[in-house]
């Protein structure tokens, strides 16, 4: 694991409105090439934390520095640019454009970033085992295949960091295993991987686990004396998408 810090959150607080505090004074550092699993019950603030890390949302207070860039100093236009150049996003609901083919769903991320290259997009889909599904629309693909398209799209711009929100949340065990296998390979290639999950077995595939409860990080395997004792944390088993 590379020890240089890639993500630095300092005293980050997020309010959605005056009465809804999603995150409360969260500080977190993630090193380059690290695989961090974020666990916690529904509504604990996991997805909010993820959205702040990838620049989809702004904190109410505190600072967020990713790859040396202070995200809180960027306007929406620069945040969008930062996101497309540095972060690959994987969603629990896949979020594919329904009228585009698998190949076009990957190419669209290229189009928003730089020149479109159909050959590279095809290779990205081959990389996730979908070379036979290039022209299929999302409605013609299984959940696992859609998630793999989503992964290929996240990889196409060669981001420094992959951020995945419950990537296996909607998949059966077999497809979940395939997806996790691909994510494991990506991590082994040196990419930083931040993954939100309810599933402790999946969380344990990472190098580090943090637990979020009520908007706070209550445990971090990196700093806990018991190290991997986080395995024993009581995490409610929720199969639906995190309420955040």
């Amino acid at each position, binding site marked *: 694991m590379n020890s240089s810090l890639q993500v630095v959150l300092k005293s980050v607080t997020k309010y959605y409105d005056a009465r809804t505090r999603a995150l409360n004074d969260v500080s977190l550092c993630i090193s380059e090439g690290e695989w961090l699993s974020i666990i916690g019950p529904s509504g604990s603030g996991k997805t909010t934390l993820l959205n702040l890390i990838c620049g989809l949302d702004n904190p109410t207070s505190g600072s967020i520095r990713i790859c040396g860039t202070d995200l809180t100093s960027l306007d929406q*236009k620069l945040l*969008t*640019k930062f996101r497309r150049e540095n972060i690959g996003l994987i969603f629990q609901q896949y979020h594919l454009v329904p009228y*585009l083919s698998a190949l076009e769903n990957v190419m669209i991320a290229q189009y928003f970033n730089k020149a479109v290259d159909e050959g590279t997009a095809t290779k990205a889909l081959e990389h996730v085992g979908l070379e036979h599904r290039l022209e299929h629309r999302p409605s013609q693909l299984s959940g696992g295949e859609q998630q793999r398209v989503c992964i290929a*799209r996240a990889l196409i711009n060669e981001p420094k960091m992959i951020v995945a929100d419950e990537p296996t949340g909607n998949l059966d065990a077999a497809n979940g295993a395939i997806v996790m296998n691909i994510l494991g390979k990506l991590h082994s290639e040196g990419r930083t991987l931040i993954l939100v999950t309810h599933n402790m077995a999946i969380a344990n595939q990472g190098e580090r686990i943090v637990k979020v409860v009520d908007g706070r990080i209550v445990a971090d395997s990196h700093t806990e004396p018991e190290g991997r004792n986080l395995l024993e944390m009581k995490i409610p088993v929720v199969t639906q998408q995190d309420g955040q």
Partner: protein
Amino acid sequence: MFLRILTKSFSNRKSRVAIAVIAVLMGASIAGGLLTVTHGIEEKLGAEFRRFGSNIVVTPRSDTIEVGLPGISFGSVAEQRYISENDLSKIKMINNWNANVLGYAPFLYQVVEAKHVDNYQRVVLAGTYFDREIPEVPWGDRVWSTGIRRTAPYWQIDGEWIEDGDSEGTIAGVSVAEKLDLKPGDYIEVTYQNPVSGATATAHLRVVGIVTTGGLEDSQLFVSLPVAQKISDRPNKVHSVQVSGLCISCPAELIAQEIELKLPYVQAKSVKQLVTAEAQIMGQLGQLMVLIAIAVLGASGLCVMMTTTTTVVERRKEIGLMKSIGADNRKIASIFVVESIIVGIIGGVLGYLLGNLIARYIGVSVFGTSLSPVVSVLPVTLGVSLFVTILASVLPVRNATRIEPAVVLRGE
């Protein structure tokens, strides 16, 4: 990739696109149709106005002489001058607006004594052209003709018109016919006495028709110009010329000015009242058409805006996704704006075609005339359609660019 997104997005939302295209088509067809009607009717109306008479009067310039006693003016007298008949064809051959000169009719007047059986009446005898061929005027492979049948088609004739070569035919005004008890086929004797020399000339004329105009013509006799010139021994001379100018794209004053340039010894005056009324009616017609078109286009614009807004709402997740993976506002906006432009172009072209059918129907059913498609209306219809669709998409596009990806992706 942009084209792929557009085409697939369109084919995925055929019904929405169809609604937007129909909305634009309706507005564009009404606007285009009314524009075609306005254009066509202005021309037809202009020609119809011409049916009510000429709108330019040409007379010779004459010097006026003040008369009276020292310190007391009794008015003025003018020396009688004439226009040479040989110069008349130049009226049709003015430099710029010659195509707008629909016709002219010269007049030579004299007071004669008319006799029919035992009835006598002093009347004005007017010599004119009825439908005279003018070979001097270049008119393709045909011969241009002019005369009172062109400049005053509103004349109601009981009987027949006079042929220009007819040396004994006359048309009597309805008042003259009543006083002399005339009917078509009767013969009358007219006698002219030269006021200077006292010499008299007599001609026997056959009444071919009785004219009713409601004007001065009802008290006059009309003959071919050569007949009048012969009776009064004034060959090649006319007193005045009435010119009928088509004044849609030019004021009658410009035609009058050109005639004066061509014939420096005459003065040409437009009949202001007629021209002003004509312009006023056409202006009001145009305003009415514009108001209707604006109202219909406004409704179309609202429909397009509602459709686009619904589309943006339906595609919130897609927009949120695109923004989350790096699409900036410019690219999001370009998708919707270009979609609107395509809708505007399709709706505009179809609207132009439908507008032609509407114009044809209105022309036949309301104005009793068939209106041809006007090609110059197409770019106007297209431009208006594009303006309306782009304007209607401004608000929805602004809403699209304001979508927060984090909010829509978490399902709120």
